[in-house]
């Protein structure tokens, strides 16, 4: 045991003396959470738009005012002809143009139908569709105001309620996601780098020749990172709660335990990587390309899995991060307990056992 503790102490020396790994360990989580929280957002806020009003009557004035008054849009410019529309988009400062047809009110009253054209800059498709939705709903609500008291044959009122994240704050989606990425990267990448570094330096040989068992060596390598990853998870949850006012609906202890499970899964993956490669560089490349991309693209962190093509949906099942994100979102946003997350938890445990078994096998082959 004393041998083992001496080994763990040495690992901490390595970590705290290496500025690069310290930065990855503690700089990255904070930077990512702030970046995703503040900068990368799907929310619509004060988007600059332009209006081309070809009829200039009461209805069009009212609609224009209603749009300008909302917090989502700012009318930056009024255009005078359709020719100016393209020019306005090309400048790039406006994201949408609202074009009222000639004699809008007249058509509305006489024919019961008025046309409004909404043009959006779809170079950014997500924002474009969000903008159209928002503008349409503003116009919709104006129409309902106008029709109040008027008898209509039919009227369908869809009443929408967004549960678990009523304000549609994207940061609520990012906190579990970033936590997953960070835990995965820190645990898997740092372990694989630190083991391959010993191989590269030749110190691994010395450790194998020493009375330390290979099991002690591997566990000794892993223990400091379990500890540091837990600190990271705590930092991320703390930032989520304090800076972004994220409510944690579920049990914090359960969240902590599930995080430890996921950390161990990632560490096992890191050990597996290190048994397969020889240099730190390859270990880093594999961790970044082989882990970071699937975690971002296939875990449901940014792109919903349900809207992926079927082959990708199948592949996403082997990404451990997918299961942890489901768990983290479930606990943080929905407040569900272990009962609802049993399947995900068991899958993560299964993966961990598989990775460990595989690395022990690989490790033995190398020793033979």
């Amino acid at each position, binding site marked *: 045991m*004393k*041998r083992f*503790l*001496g*080994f763990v*102490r*040495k690992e901490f*020396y*390595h970590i705290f*003396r*290496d500025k690069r790994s310290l930065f990855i360990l503690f700089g990255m989580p904070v930077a990512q959470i702030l970046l995703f929280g503040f900068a990368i957002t799907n929310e619509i806020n004060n988007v600059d738009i332009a209006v081309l009003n070809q009829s200039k009557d009461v209805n069009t004035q009212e609609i224009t005012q209603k749009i300008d008054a909302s917090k989502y849009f700012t009318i930056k410019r009024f255009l005078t002809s359709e020719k100016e529309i393209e020019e306005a988009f090309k400048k790039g400062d406006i994201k949408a143009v609202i074009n009222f047809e000639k004699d809008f009110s007249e058509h509305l009253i006489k024919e019961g139908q008025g046309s409004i054209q909404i043009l959006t800059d779809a170079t950014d498709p997500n924002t474009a569709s969000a903008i159209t939705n928002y503008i349409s709903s503003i116009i919709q609500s104006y129409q309902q105001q106008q029709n109040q008291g008027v008898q209509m044959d039919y009227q369908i009122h869809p009443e929408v309620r967004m549960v678990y994240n009523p304000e549609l704050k994207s940061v609520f989606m990012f906190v579990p996601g970033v936590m997953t990425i960070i835990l995965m990267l820190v645990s898997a990448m740092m372990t694989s780098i630190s083991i391959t570094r010993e191989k590269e*330096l*030749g*110190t691994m*040989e*010395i*450790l*194998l*020749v*020493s*009375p*330390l*068992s290979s099991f002690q060596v591997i566990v000794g390598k892993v223990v400091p990172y379990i500890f540091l990853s837990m600190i990271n998870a705590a930092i991320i949850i703390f930032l989520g709660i304090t800076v972004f006012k994220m409510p944690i609906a579920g049990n914090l202890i359960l969240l902590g335990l599930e995080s430890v499970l996921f950390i161990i899964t990632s560490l096992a993956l890191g050990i597996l990587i290190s048994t397969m490669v020889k240099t730190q560089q390859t270990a880093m490349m594999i961790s970044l390309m082989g882990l970071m991309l699937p975690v971002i693209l296939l875990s449901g962190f940014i792109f919903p899995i349900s809207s992926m093509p079927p082959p990708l949906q199948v592949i996403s099942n082997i990404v451990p991060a997918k299961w942890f994100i489901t768990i983290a979102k479930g606990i943080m946003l929905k407040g569900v307990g272990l009962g609802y997350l049993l399947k995900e938890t068991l899958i993560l445990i299964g993966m961990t056992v598989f990775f460990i078994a595989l690395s022990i096998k690989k490790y033995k082959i190398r*020793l*033979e």
Partner: protein
Amino acid sequence: MKEENVIISKGLTKRFGGFTAVDAITFEVKKGEIFGFLGANGAGKTTAMKMLIGISNPTGGEAMVAGFDVHTQQDAIKKNIGYMSQKFALYDDLTVAENITFYGGIYGLSRKQIREKRTKLIETLGLGEIAHQLVGSLPLGWKQKLAFSVAMLHDPQIVFLDEPTGGVDPITRRQFWEMIYKAADKGTTIFVTTHYMDEAEYCHRVSIMVAGKIEALDTPKKLKEQFEVSSMNDVFLRLARNIE
């Protein structure tokens, strides 16, 4: 006093699939001897050494190292030998003192033992002023001496040195060999592989491996007489050419 053998190898063999890396090598090493283990790259000397230090399982044959069986008592062997490899096995980002403490720790020395050894070692090597500097900042020669001393820290019966002097200047090599002689005088057995044929001359006895087999084993002097040449380098070339 009867000379005792600390390494006894009988027909030790290692096969990788159809390729025989080490082909039934038989030899003995006496206590306190400096035994040179020579061979060209790929001749199988590293593989043979790995079996002797307990990190590779032999395919056939027998060997006893420090009184323990390489097949069944690898853990006991590990406790009784020291090892230094061609790459310097010290941690650059740890200080001199921390490196010593770490190696003492993994060999199971008590805290008190480690403290005494550390003080003594730092004093003998004259490292007093830089004991708390990172090893990475030391010149190569110093690192090498330190690595050797660290491998000797737990007073092993045998020290295995795998090309210990690669890439160092002749003066440092000379000093390093003086350390080896001192250790051997105290009764430690030295098992050393090397590329440098002039170093082979320093050994008490040398074996030369060619294509997995030990083709020659004797004192440097007798080997030179046997092949009727004036240097170990020529002995080596003769052997390599005969095989071809």
